[in-house]
């Protein structure tokens, strides 16, 4: 019996969510096929790769290529400009590590000024990530969202504990896009989307952050959750799970020992930078394969590789 391929498309599709404005705006989602199955149907929008910078700058010890890339960029705005110019970048993610009350505890005013500078320095969309402190993030997001009005900035993230504040300020008062962050669990993700939409945030303004893990660190939960979310969105037409997914890969992968152990401490493992990049790309690739519409990476070499892989699959 001769073989005929049966393209598998669904009557449901992932929501389209626009980040940024102008020529370099990025649309996430839109596809009606399983993740990366572009042979089943040409995608409306390709998965997007973002590059992450922090307000404080990276400690690039042991990472000569990363140091060289940002060489001469003294301010967050300068780093953002370089980051935005890296090959394969669709958007820039500014992470406010310095805002953490347990760390540098930078003032909201300082952070707002940084956000403004960064926004003015780049022409690609901006994603703002907080410091993971619920109270500080809520205040920070609201203040930054106010000064970025009209720019379609995505904020990572609203969580169960603060979705009301973040949703109301970022999503409603200032008309930005809201990341909905839940622990790796389909039901919690859906519940958060439900309550966010009940609050009044439109489904098209929500991007899901379902959590991440570095490869080898419980990634099976990430993969299975993404698999199930996509199945529910497409096969079951579950509108509360059709929001596109953005996975912040770098924060996870650059904190595991495979990426941070210095070469001097573990000579047989070889170059620390190479390990870090590989941990980041392998994890990012697995996220995209399972169902992320976008990933956030740190190293320009990782961005280039993942963007090239996406291009090769289109």
């Amino acid at each position, binding site marked *: *019996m001769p073989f005929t391929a049966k393209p598998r498309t669904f009557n449901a599709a992932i929501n389209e969510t626009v980040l940024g404005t102008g020529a370099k705006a990025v649309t996430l989602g839109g596809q009606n096929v399983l993740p990366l199955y*572009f*042979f089943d149907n040409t995608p409306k929008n390709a998965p997007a790769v973002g590059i992450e910078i922090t307000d404080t700058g990276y400690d690039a010890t042991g990472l000569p290529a990363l140091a060289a890339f940002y060489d001469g960029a003294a301010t967050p705005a300068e780093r953002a400009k370089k980051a935005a110019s890296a090959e394969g970048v669709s958007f820039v993610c500014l992470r406010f590590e310095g805002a953490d009350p347990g760390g540098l505890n930078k003032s909201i005013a300082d952070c707002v000024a940084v956000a403004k500078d960064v926004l003015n320095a780049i022409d690609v969309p901006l994603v703002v990530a907080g410091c993971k402190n619920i109270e500080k993030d809520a205040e920070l997001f609201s203040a930054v969202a106010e000064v970025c009005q009209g720019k379609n900035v995505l904020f990572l993230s609203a969580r169960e504990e603060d979705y009301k504040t973040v949703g109301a300020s970022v999503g409603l008062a200032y008309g930005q896009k809201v990341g909905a962050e839940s622990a790796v669990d389909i039901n919690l993700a859906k519940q958060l989307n439900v309550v966010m939409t009940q609050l009044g945030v439109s489904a098209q303004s929500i991007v899901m952050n379902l959590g991440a893990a570095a490869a*080898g660190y419980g*990634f*099976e939960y990430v*993969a299975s959750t993404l698999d199930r979310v996509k199945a529910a969105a497409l096969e079951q037409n579950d509108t509360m799970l059709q929001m596109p997914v953005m996975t912040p890969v770098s924060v996870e992968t650059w904190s595991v020992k495979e990426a941070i152990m210095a070469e001097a401490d573990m000579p047989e493992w070889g170059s620390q930078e190479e390990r870090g990049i590989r941990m980041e790309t392998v994890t990012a690739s697995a996220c995209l394969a399972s169902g992320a519409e976008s990933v956030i990476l740190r190293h320009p070499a990782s961005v280039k590789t993942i963007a090239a892989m996406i291009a090769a699959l289109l």
Partner: protein
Amino acid sequence: MALKGLDIFKLTPKTNCKDCGNPTCMAFAMKVAQGAVSIDKCPHMSADALAKLSEATEPPMKTISIGEHKLGGETVMLRHEKTLVNKNLFSLYVCADMADADIDAKIAEAVKVDYERISERMYVETIFVNVEETQTADRGIAVAKKAAATGRDLILRCTKPELAKEIAAAVPVKVLVGANASNYEALNAVATEKGLVLGVSGKDLGELHDTIEKLEAAGNKNLIIYLGGTSIKEAFAAAVQIRRAALKDEDRTFGYPAIVNLERLAPGDDNLQASLASLFTLRYGSILVMGRMTYADALPLYGLRQNIFTDPQKPMKVEPGIYPINGAGENAVCAVTVDFALTYFVVSGEMERSGVPVNLLISDAGGYSVLTSWAAGKFSAGSIAKFIEEQQIESKIKSRTLILPGKVAVLKGEVEAKLPGWNIVVGPNEAIQLVRFLKDYK
């Protein structure tokens, strides 16, 4: 559709004779339904019943053995639907056209990657030796011997039957890749004669399908599909469509595992090859052939594979015992948690980041997370005290401070009662708070 245990039970003799090694026919039937035992283990099954069952229990995807490794045999597309059974293998690409020094260096580099992670040996299981038709048999044999010297299983790719035959006669090959629409008969003869798994390719899926049908008609079902000389997009499409046809559309012709040659898809691009290896680990590559294998590749890729090929219902476990962190000695504080691998990784990772020496005590909690094992009674004051006694912690460690996971703060009093002389401290609820906690505590 797989048969339910009771359907199988109805066909057993129901005598509980134990000849199959199981105490009852019911226990046997349930194991057959799970695929844990083959139906022919019962010597009393009627021919009728056997015929009925073997057809119904024939898997949609064949299990192919390569040395000690098994490939394929999957029944679901995604792990959460049930579980994935046979993990993919990695392979190092060498080609007879390459210079000897390069081949030696690549092999030496790849062989160095050999370590254990959660009771699993992580190494390159196979070496893929490519011998083009223009090469001589001597050269092919010489290169294959270099590969064979590693003791890893050998995959030979050679499309020229006579050449393949000569090499396979001289070197212990496990898989012979190279069958296609024009040479399959001759290559099939080489493979079957030697008992090798035969790798098949086609210029497109239609041709591949035809060739497999012909090989099956010729009596060979010991096959593997080879996805090599195409584009990344085509290889990915093929891998998905082949698996989908086998499992979703019950097209048993495509019920074979697939080899994906990443060195061919992304020549020389190590980063891209690793990303693709990740993609094909999740989506239906059974042997992934890489241009190089370094620790940088292996650490994330093997970790990912170990994650994906765990049974969703059987969490990964680490061995119970004392795990000294940051060079902890006998005076460093103890912190106890469960043997769920994810808990171990997250907790030990955060402890390492804190820089504070800690004796991490992993107690046997059935491989469940803290709250789950606590709820199931597997992580209790009693189990902690028993662990401390059995592991003779008190004679090995002088510190008498024990940090409990914050989520089981409720155990504090009981643990105090069971471990007199110990100072029981309640730690944070989440691992991420450990760095702070340990630094402050110190």
